[in-house]
C-alpha cells in the first residue's frame, strides 16, 4: 500500500497497476453494458455487481483502500443484495417486458439522465475550480482512514448528518407506507366468524375432496355430489374444470 501511495502521489503508474487496470477496465465496461442489455432482472443486477467490484478494486489501486472496501461492503454486499432480495421475491421468470406502460418514458429518462449528469458535472466543476490539488502525500498524512474521518466529522459534518437524516426519513417513510396495522376491533371474534359460517347461503361443512367418486385421481377432476352432479367447489380456483380427453383415458400401453 505504501509503495502504491508513493507511486500514485508521484503521478507514476506501476506495472502491476497497469496490468490490473487493463484486466478490470474491460470487465467493468462489460458489466455496465450487460446490466443494460440483460433481459432477466437478476442477471442485470449481477452484471452491476461485477462493475461495482471492479470499481472497488480501482479505488484500492488509486491508494484509497478504505473507500474501495466500503464500496464492496456497502454497495455490493448490502445494497445490491437487497435489490436481489426484492427481485427474487418478485419471481425468477420476471423478464423485462418491452411494452412501455408509461408513455414517453424513455425520452423522459434520457432527458432527466442528461440533466442529472449535467448537474453533477457542473457541481463538481464549480467545486474544483478554485481548489489546488495538494497530492496524496499530504491528504493521507495521518493515514487514509483518519484523513477521511477528519474531513467527515469536521468540515462536512453538517452535510453528512443531513444525508443520514434524509436516508433515515426515507427508510422510516417506506416502512410507514408499507406497514399495515390491523386494529384489534377489526379482528372478527369467534362468535362473528361462526355466524358468518352458518349464514344461509353458505355451506358450513368441509369442502368435498377432489376426485371423490370420480374416474380419475387428478386434483383437476371435480368431485361428484350424491345426486351425480359435479361440484366445482372441490377443485382449486386456478385449475379449470375439464373432462379427460380420449387420449388421456385410454390405456397407456405400459402393461404389456
Amino acid at each position, binding site marked *: *500500500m*505504501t*509503495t502504491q501511495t508513493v507511486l500514485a502521489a508521484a503521478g507514476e503508474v506501476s506495472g502491476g497497476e497497469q496490468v490490473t487496470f487493463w484486466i478490470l477496465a474491460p470487465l467493468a465496461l462489460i458489466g455496465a453494458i450487460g446490466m443494460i442489455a440483460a433481459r*432477466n432482472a*437478476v*442477471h442485470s443486477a*449481477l452484471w452491476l*455487481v461485477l462493475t461495482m467490484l471492479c470499481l*472497488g478494486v480501482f479505488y484500492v489501486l488509486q491508494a484509497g*483502500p*478504505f473507500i474501495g*472496501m*466500503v464500496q*464492496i*461492503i456497502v454497495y*455490493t*454486499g*448490502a445494497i445490491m*443484495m*437487497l435489490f*436481489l*432480495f426484492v427481485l*427474487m*421475491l418478485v419471481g*425468477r421468470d420476471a423478464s423485462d417486458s418491452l411494452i412501455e406502460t408509461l408513455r414517453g418514458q424513455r425520452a423522459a429518462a434520457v432527458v432527466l439522465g442528461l440533466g442529472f449528469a449535467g448537474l453533477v458535472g457542473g457541481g463538481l466543476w464549480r467545486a474544483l475550480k478554485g481548489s489546488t490539488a495538494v497530492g496524496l502525500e499530504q491528504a493521507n498524512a495521518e*493515514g*487514509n*482512514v483518519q484523513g477521511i474521518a477528519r474531513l467527515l466529522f469536521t468540515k462536512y459534518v453538517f452535510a453528512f448528518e443531513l444525508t443520514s437524516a434524509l436516508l433515515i426519513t426515507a427508510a422510516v417513510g417506506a416502512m410507514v407506507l408499507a406497514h399495515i396495522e390491523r386494529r384489534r376491533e377489526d379482528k372478527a*371474534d369467534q*362468535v362473528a366468524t*361462526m*355466524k358468518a359460517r352458518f349464514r344461509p347461503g353458505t355451506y358450513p361443512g368441509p369442502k368435498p375432496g377432489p376426485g371423490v367418486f370420480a374416474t380419475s385421481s387428478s386434483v383437476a377432476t371435480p368431485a361428484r355430489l350424491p345426486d351425480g352432479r359435479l361440484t366445482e367447489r372441490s377443485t382449486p380456483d386456478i385449475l379449470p374444470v375439464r373432462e379427460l380427453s380420449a387420449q388421456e383415458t385410454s390405456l397407456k400401453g405400459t402393461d404389456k
Partner: protein
Amino acid sequence: MNAVYLAQDPTLADFGRDPWWLVLGKIVFAFALGLVATLLGVWFERRVVGYMQVRPGPNQVGPFGLLQTLADGLKMAFKEDILPRAADKVVYFFAPVISVVCAVTALSVIPFGPMVSIFGHRTPLQVTDVPVAVLVLLACSSLAVYGIVLGGWASGSTYPLLGGLRSSAQMISYEVAMGLSIVAVFMTAGTMSTSGIVAAQGDATRLSVFGTEIPAPGWYAILLLPSFVIFFIATVGETNRAPFDLPEAESELVAGFMTEYSSLKFALFMLSEYVAMVTMSAVTVTLFLGGWRAPWPITLWEGANSGWWPMLWFFGKVIMLVFVFVWLRGTLPRLRYDQFMRFGWKVLLPINLVWILVLAGLRSIEDWDRSSKLIAVGIPAGILLLATLFWPARRPQPKPTLQEQVNNRPPGSFPLPPMDLQVPPSPRIRRVVAEREPANIAAGPDSREV
C-alpha cells in the same frame, strides 16, 4: 528484552517486501490450510458431536476415522452431477465457486504469527496486510452471501429459493451486529490492520502483585467483553451454523439453498461452510483473543512470542473456538426465524450501540483529573439509577377468572354446559376392566434350562 519483544511485531511496512516464491508459498499455505481444516473439521465435528451424544462417531477409515472425510470427499466427486432443467446454468455453476473463493480469500489477511525467518528472509507469518484488513474480512463475508443466494435462486426450485432468501436476510442482519462490535475494537486499537490489532493487544500494562509482575490482560475479549460476545454470536449467524442454520433447516426446507446441488458443487458448498467456520474462528482469535500471542502462564517463558511458537498458540485458540461452534451445534435447538430476527435487530444491535456510546464516553474522559472523572461518570450513573427506580412499573393485568370469562362473552354466543356439571362415568369403561384369569406362572420345563 523489550526491544526484542517489539521487533517480533510486524508493522505495515514489513509487508510487500517478500520475493515472489515466498508470496506464492504463503498463498499456497493459506489455501491448503483451508482444505486441511475442512478435512479435519468435518471429522472433528462428527467425533465431538458423537462423543456428546454417547456414540463413537466415524472410527473406521484410517486411525481414529481421520480419513473418513477424505473418503466421503472422493465418493462425492464421483457422483453424478445433476443440473436441474429449470436451473439458470451459468449462475448455478458459479454460486458454489463464489462461496469458496470468498471463504478462502478471507484467510489471506489473518496473521498466523510474528516475524519469522524463512530461508534467510525475515517475513511476517501472514499472506498480506493492508491498513483496512478487517474491512477486507467484512467484504469477504458480505460477498459470501452471494454464493448462497445465487445458488438458491439459480436452482429453479422452491426450497432452495426460500433458503436463499432467508440466508440473505440473515447474513445482512448479522453483518450489522458484527460490524458494530468491530467498531469497539477499532476505537481501542486505533487501527484496522489485523497485525496492528494483534500488536495492540500485546502491550499490556504490568500489575505487580506480591512482588511478582503479572501482565494485565490486553485481550479485547476481556477489555471489550460485550463486543466479544456479540461478535461471536454474529459469527455463528454469519456462518449459518446451528442454532442459526435456518437457510438449510432440514425440517423445514429439505437442505435449503443446496437442495438441488450434488457431486462436486455440493462438496464446494460444504468446503466453504467449514472454511468459513475456521476463518471466522481465526478472525475472532485475531480481533479479541490476542491473535498469535501466548496466554498468560506461557508468557512467563520469554521466547513464547517469538519464532514459530506463536503459530501453535494461534491454532490452539482456533481449535478451541471451533470446538465451541461444534458444542453449540450439539447443545442448542434451532431458533425460529422470527425469534432469530428479533434477537438480531432488537437485542444485539441496541446493546451494541449503547456499549459503543459508553466506550466512547469512557475514552473521552480518560485524560481528565480524578474529580471531573467522578462527576462525568457519576451523573449519568445517578440518572440511570433514578430512572430505573422511579420508572412507572407496568403491573400485569389480573387474569380474569373462569366465571368472569364466561360472563364477558358477547351476546349470542353459543351455550356452554353448566360450570358444575358432573359428568357421569361412561358405562363403556367397565368393559375395559375385564377380569382376567390368573396367569399360570408355575415353574415349567423352561426354568430348568437356566
